[in-house]
């Protein structure tokens, strides 16, 4: 994958509420976060803590009631903002439910075509995106999306967003209900994206995958920020231990158990093996 200039993200005092039977139910209260270009952020929190809502506000699918989302230093009222919003990619929970075209290739091409790209550029972007998610076009291009397996469908839907070449990618629970092999493939795709410079926001319950992929951390509880900043096991990461419905990454807990300094816990199994050898 070619190198990308990541997009920086800053959320300021975001507030949002849903309405149920005329009564507003707050989903986010004064949420702020700062993510420099090219870094990756783990968005953690129990179900209903506001993770998905935050992603939708960042993409601009909902307008915040208070606060604003600043992209690449541009405020929402500045002229280039709509263009920047188009460079934010979002992959919803269970994105395989949005596949609709009659071939895998056509489905991935939908986004870049809607952006008005040249056909040659579309072709290049689609082929590259399909290869990146492990669905080589020479094998999968003509397949019908609904004839693919669940894991392949999930990766195809991801390719549909990657083909739009986002500079900021928002992933909502991408690892849910996947078998271990697909999970590994998807984790590998994420780390390749990260290495290429894309800014990444990963909302997930899988704290172990988040620990290997993410530099920064944002913990939400009932729509409020519980902890944020660089993910340091003994700093911002402490919030995970003190929240009953969350837990620390396995490797951090292991380091604690071994009597080693959890602040220096390894990020990957390979690093752990190296340290324990």
């Amino acid at each position, binding site marked *: 994958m070619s190198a990308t200039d990541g997009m920086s993200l800053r959320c300021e005092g975001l507030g949002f509420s849903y309405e149920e039977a005329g009564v507003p139910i707050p989903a986010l209260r004064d949420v702020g976060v700062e993510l420099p270009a090219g870094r990756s952020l783990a968005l953690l929190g129990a179900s209903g803590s506001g993770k998905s809502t935050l992603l*939708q506000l960042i*993409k601009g*699918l909902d307008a915040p009631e208070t606060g604003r989302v600043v992209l690449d230093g541009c405020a929402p009222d500045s002229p280039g903002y709509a263009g920047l919003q*188009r460079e934010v*990619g*979002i992959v*919803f929970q269970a*994105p395989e*439910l*949005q*596949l*609709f*075209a009659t071939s895998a290739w056509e489905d991935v091409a*939908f*986004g870049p075509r*809607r*952006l008005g790209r040249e056909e040659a550029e579309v072709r290049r972007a689609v082929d590259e995106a399909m290869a990146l998610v492990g669905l080589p076009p020479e094998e999968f291009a003509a397949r019908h999306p*609904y004839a693919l397996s669940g894991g392949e469908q999930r990766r195809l839907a991801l390719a*549909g*967003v990657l083909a*739009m070449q986002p500079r900021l990618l928002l992933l909502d629970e991408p690892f849910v209900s996947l078998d271990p092999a697909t999970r590994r493939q998807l984790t590998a795709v994420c780390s390749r994206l990260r290495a290429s410079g894309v800014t990444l926001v990963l909302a997930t319950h899988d704290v172990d995958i988040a620990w290997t992929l993410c530099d920064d951390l944002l913990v939400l509880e009932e729509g409020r920020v519980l902890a944020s900043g660089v993910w340091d096991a003994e700093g911002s990461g402490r919030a995970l231990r003190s929240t009953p419905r969350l837990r620390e990454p396995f490797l951090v807990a292991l380091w604690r158990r071994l009597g080693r300094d959890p602040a220096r816990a390894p990020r990957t199994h390979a690093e752990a093996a190296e340290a324990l050898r």
Partner: protein
Amino acid sequence: MRPAIAQYYPGDSVIHRLDARAKFVSVTAVAVALFLRDSFAGLAVFAVAAAVAYMLSGVPAVWFWRGFRPLLWLIALTFLTQLLFAPGEPFFSWWVFDFSWQGLRFASFLSLRLLVLVLAGSVLTLTTAPLALTDGLAWLGRPLRRLRVPTDELALMVTIALRFIPTLLVELEQIMRAQRARGADFSHGGPIRRGKALLPVLIPLFVLSFRRADELALAMEARCYRPGVVRSRLHPLHVDAADAVLLALTAAVIAVGLIV
């Protein structure tokens, strides 16, 4: 987004507490009587009866208006065609059209009849929970089972369909968001372009609905659903004195309406 038909306004009024079957029979009888009678006096009797029932239900008038508004076109069209084509002494002519007092009278009568019909119908649908209504219809349709019409199964189908409308609306919203994030545009262009833009939404929605229907059928079988077996009810229908009063009042209103 709420379907305009079969809306239910939860409440605890006299009308809400009546049995669904009694209400259904009463409204149907009034509707039939409405079409048997063609005098303004009879119409006025039924209109007053329906209006009183609506007021007793305690449902805000705006709810009736919401259900009635989509029908305004139909009523306007009825009014116009009757006005233009009913035979009578013309008092005013323009091009090929003749306007007569008889035509005007007949057009107003038909429009008012439709209005009263919709009013009576809304009292039923606004004050009866969809589940109670389908249960009531299934009970009333029971004699048809002798003719091998699967009335209970039909009622269950209607219940499931009503139950899944909100679920499908939520899913529709999610798919639209996802496609909008991929650059789909649902709000610009002419009808053809907009229709085409809906394709990426409708296909996943259909696939999802069929999958859901399959899963629901399996889940129901796993929980021992058998078609044709008599099932018990969580809220059994239940008739009391108020329902008898309703039926007696309905008979009286119809008698008066047909005689005056």
